[in-house]
């Protein structure tokens, strides 16, 4: 029954999309419109991610004059509170009620995975800026979800880069890893870090899972302090990392802390995390003209230096607009083919081409947290 309903919905949407490109207009008066929905966590535990995403999205649309090819862009912004259920409801509503042709977002992998499933099922183009878990573009059986793309590199790459940097540049021989067992992103980074760190001759001396609701880390941190690791790898978002970092320092753990792009927030506890490193998608200090123009435009509009979330949302939106421009249609199937065929598209976070799984092939940046609430660009690492 449910499958039947879904099929009917898909059919309905297909007819609608076909109508849009055939008659040359879906709105009244024959105007050509592409509708885009943005899903982002504008409140809740990672709200700075959502705000940056929204800013990057709006800046990209504004610079394009809310047009792509012969089509004008209409957009809808929705808050998912970083909650997978909420995101699923919003995505379904955007697709079935607002009849969007494409979705941008969300931020975290656990929220984006369900969105990608519903978008792919309804044959709507979906591109996320920042969801790094492989399962976003590939289903459980390892098959590609053909309508889904992302603008960021994936977890295995981030874990690999972090392990390589820890071994070769920091000279770390032992590491402790603490991760959130209920978060696809955190688990993905942790596992790939461990694999590459051990393959490179390092030793993981503590491997500890926690739950999202945990606030008391004293027991596992006493164990970590006892194991005296060189490095403490914390692949989680800024608020949890700040909490763990503070308790770790209070337990007398002096190991260098390292993490992933989840640290990239103005609300990270910079005083505690200063000296720590994290892998990221871009650095505002990069001298490439695309980066400098984006940083200048963003600062002019919002008054702050854009973080990676903003840069990736901006890139994701531009990739989508380029797809619409090249195919010059509102048909999601043709838009997704145009995106898949992009070669060396010049974006803020690098020259983007897509592999067979909808993942961009590009380099990663390593940044160091500074006590004065900034980050310093340390190195760029290629895949």
């Amino acid at each position: 029954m449910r499958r039947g309903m879904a099929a009917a919905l898909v059919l309905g949407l297909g007819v609608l999309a076909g109508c849009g490109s055939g008659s040359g207009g879906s709105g009244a008066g024959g105007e050509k419109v592409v509708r885009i929905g943005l899903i982002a966590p504008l409140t809740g535990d990672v709200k700075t991610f959502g705000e940056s995403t929204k800013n990057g999205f709006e800046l990209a649309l504004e610079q394009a004059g809310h047009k792509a090819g012969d089509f004008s862009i209409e957009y809808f912004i929705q808050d998912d509170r970083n909650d997978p259920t909420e995101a699923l409801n919003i995505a379904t509503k955007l697709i079935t009620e607002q009849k969007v042709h494409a979705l941008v977002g969300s931020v975290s992998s656990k929220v984006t995975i369900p969105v990608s499933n519903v978008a792919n099922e309804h044959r709507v183009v979906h591109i996320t800026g920042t969801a790094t878990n492989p399962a976003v573009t590939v289903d459980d059986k390892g098959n590609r979800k053909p309508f889904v793309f992302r603008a960021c590199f994936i977890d295995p790459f981030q874990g690999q880069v972090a392990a390589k940097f820890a071994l070769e540049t920091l000279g770390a021989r032992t590491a402790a890893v603490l991760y959130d067992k209920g978060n696809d992103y955190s688990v993905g980074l942790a596992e790939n870090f461990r694999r590459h760190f051990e393959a490179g001759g390092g030793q993981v001396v503590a491997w500890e899972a926690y739950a999202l609701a945990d606030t008391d880390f004293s027991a596992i941190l006493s164990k970590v302090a006892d194991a005296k690791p060189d490095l403490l790898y914390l692949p989680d978002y800024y608020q949890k990392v700040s909490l763990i970092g503070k308790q770790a320092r209070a337990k007398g753990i002096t190991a260098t802390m390292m993490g992933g792009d989840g640290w990239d927030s103005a609300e990270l506890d910079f005083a505690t995390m200063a000296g720590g490193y994290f892998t990221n998608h871009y650095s505002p200090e990069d001298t490439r003209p695309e980066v400098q123009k984006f940083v200048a435009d963003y600062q002019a509009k919002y008054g702050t230096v854009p973080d990676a979330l903003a840069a990736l949302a901006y890139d994701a939106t531009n990739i989508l607009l380029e797809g619409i421009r090249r195919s010059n249609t509102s048909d999601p199937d043709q838009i997704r083919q145009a995106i898949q065929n992009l070669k060396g598209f010049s974006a803020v976070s690098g020259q983007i081409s897509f592999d067979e799984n909808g993942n961009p092939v590009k380099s990663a940046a390593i940044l160091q947290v500074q006590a004065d609430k900034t980050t310093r660009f340390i190195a760029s690492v290629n895949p």
Partner: protein
Amino acid sequence: MGYLLESIRNGLPLLLEQVLNGLQLGFVYALIALGYTMVYGIIKLINFAHGDIFMVGAFLGVFGFTYWGLPWPAAILVAMAGCAVFGVMIERIAYRPLRAKGAPRIAALITAIGVSLFIEYFSSLKFVFGPNFRVVERPFGDVRWTLGGVGISNIQLLVIAVVLGLLLALQYVVYRTKIGKAMRAVAFDVDAARLMGIDVDKVIAYTFAIGSALAAAAGVLYALAYPQIHPFMGIMPGLKAFTAAVLGGIGNIPGAVLGALIMGQAEVMTAAYISSEFRDAIAFSLLILVLLVRPAGLLGKAGPEKV
């Protein structure tokens, strides 16, 4: 044999440190559990909004020593006073009218759940506390001493000292003052107490005030020990403390403290020696096991249940 002794000697400081971690957590739970158990002891109501009073206390305390520029001991007192008033208000607005109308106890219980959800979502609004996580800036630096390989921090000492102080104060109020005597009388038999001229509503209000003040102190200590606050932070500690109160025998004050200390140790020891993935599972299984053997809890009085 020599090897065994050696490994015990090496593991002992870590074990003692874990015991301290468990004490820190258990003592915070104890302060919250007392509020549950005192209210239950007197009006047989499980006040599910108690964990949220803990949250409000944490916010008031943190606002006190960050935005309002109070020294931290004053911030704890302000949070306790604020929550005492808040607790009495909740009792006056949500529970007393139900009692006056003689509503069944299940109605009061459901009201308590409603009050809890109301406080959580109301304080998530932007013009109240806001939905976001806030990092707590501790008003003092981290100091850490090592005694024979056992590490102890100033936060742990502070938590243990403040909780012990408050427990002694509570003991004094309940057993050495007139209002304490009245509370014990009401807990023993409400109708008989009323016939003896005790103002039962006033005693209940006092109970809410004391329980809420203790929860507020727990909130501020929790925010200092685990430095992050948000409007839903009271749910898990509240649930654990409630479990601790039941484990120790709900309605029984020493039982609440005992139950909380057991919960704290169970959680920390599971995380330390088994896996942190099992910490909640084992803590709650312990509750089920104890209740199977002693349905009234460890120190609870066995008797016919009047639910």
